[in-house]
């Protein structure tokens, strides 16, 4: 009887050790919606102001330039974001995330304020670079797994929806005051980016 008890105890210890040693990353990076990784990724984007503001600024910029720019941005940005996320999945957590995000906000907000007359090629490059950088920063910390990849898809889908809606809204604006309101919005984004730059320099 004692032998059976000891065997059971040993089996439990072995099981405990196996479970304890086999733990993977917690992947607490994503906010759990309870509706699966696609929605987790979507929520992550919607609850990350630094990502949201950067994508919003690019959508405003593309919308101000016209329909062709909006169309280019709405496919380039999510695709690059997805690619960047996949690249970042296996990387260690990036430390320069806040600094990079704040610089993007200052740059994109500034371009919206001055209503920069960018070429279509420059806009595409800007969207691709933004997507790659922010996607990479999103991907880091998710951990390399199928669930994280699906979450990255949800994230890219959220970027796509935001760019489509905002760029389409701005493209159809004809009144001068409405276009000026968009540029004022750009100044708010640039100002927020500048403040964020200050926070990152201070190390908050």
């Amino acid at each position, binding site marked *: 009887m004692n032998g059976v008890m*000891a065997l059971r*105890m*040993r089996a439990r*210890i072995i099981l*405990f*050790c196996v479970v*304890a*040693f086999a*733990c*993977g*990353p*917690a*992947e*607490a*990076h994503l*906010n759990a919606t309870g509706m699966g990784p696609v929605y987790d990724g979507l929520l992550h984007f919607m*609850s*990350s*102001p*630094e990502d949201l*503001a950067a994508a919003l600024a690019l959508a405003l910029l593309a919308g101000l330039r016209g329909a062709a720019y909006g169309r280019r941005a709405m496919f380039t940005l999510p695709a690059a974001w997805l690619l960047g996320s996949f690249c970042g999945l296996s990387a260690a*957590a990036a430390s320069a995330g*806040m600094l990079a995000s704040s610089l993007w906000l200052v740059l994109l907000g500034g371009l919206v*304020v001055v209503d920069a007359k960018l070429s279509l090629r420059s806009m595409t490059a800007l969207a691709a670079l933004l997507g790659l950088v922010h996607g990479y920063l999103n991907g880091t*910390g*998710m*951990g390399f797994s199928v669930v994280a990849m699906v979450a990255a898809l949800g994230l890219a889908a959220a970027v796509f929806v935001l760019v489509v809606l905002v760029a389409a809204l701005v493209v159809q604006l004809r009144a001068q005051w409405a276009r*000026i309101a968009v*540029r*004022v919005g750009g*100044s*708010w984004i*640039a*100002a*927020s980016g*500048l*403040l*964020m*730059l*200050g*926070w990152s*320099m*201070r190390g*908050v």
Partner: protein
Amino acid sequence: MRQRRQRLSPRKVALLATVPATLWAQAALAHVQQGGAAGLLAGLQHPLSGLDHVLAMVAVGLWGAQLGAPAIWVLPVAFPLVMALGGVFGFLGLQLPGVEIGIAASAIVLGAAVAFEVRPPLVIAALVVGCFAIFHGHAHGTELPPGQSALLYSMGFVIATGCLHALGIGIGTVHRWSWGRRLLRSAGAAVTAGGAFFMWKAFS
């Protein structure tokens, strides 16, 4: 002498297994932002919490509306950008002498500009507004409540400031009527009187 062979008890084995398992634990990678909603609300509330700030912000909008295009949008664009710069000075701990005096002076000068319908060149108007924005930004920048999201706090106070400008511009639209012009000048005088009160408080 025959040494007695001591057997490890299951409890000791479990303990020995737990220690390396605990030390081997991988990073949780949890970076859920804390205090997000509270940070945004604190930021939105901050410019509204001081009447001296409110008076100066509304006066910027009133003056812009009185001056007409392009000042009507250049001033509200210049203000948050320069204010953000002042905020960065505040975060970094750079001392700015007489912040409260500067804020009170901004209400006096901007109110007087509206009351006397001063029409300087656009550059001068933007410089005046920009100089005062530094003081307002510095005051906001030194007062991040602990444990709250810095970015959302920053966004909150930029948005609140912009909304106060928009309020001023909205009120300033009465400028097209003769009674409205008189009303606007009276409002400017009221802002100056309020600024003088805060100046007196700053010195007392």
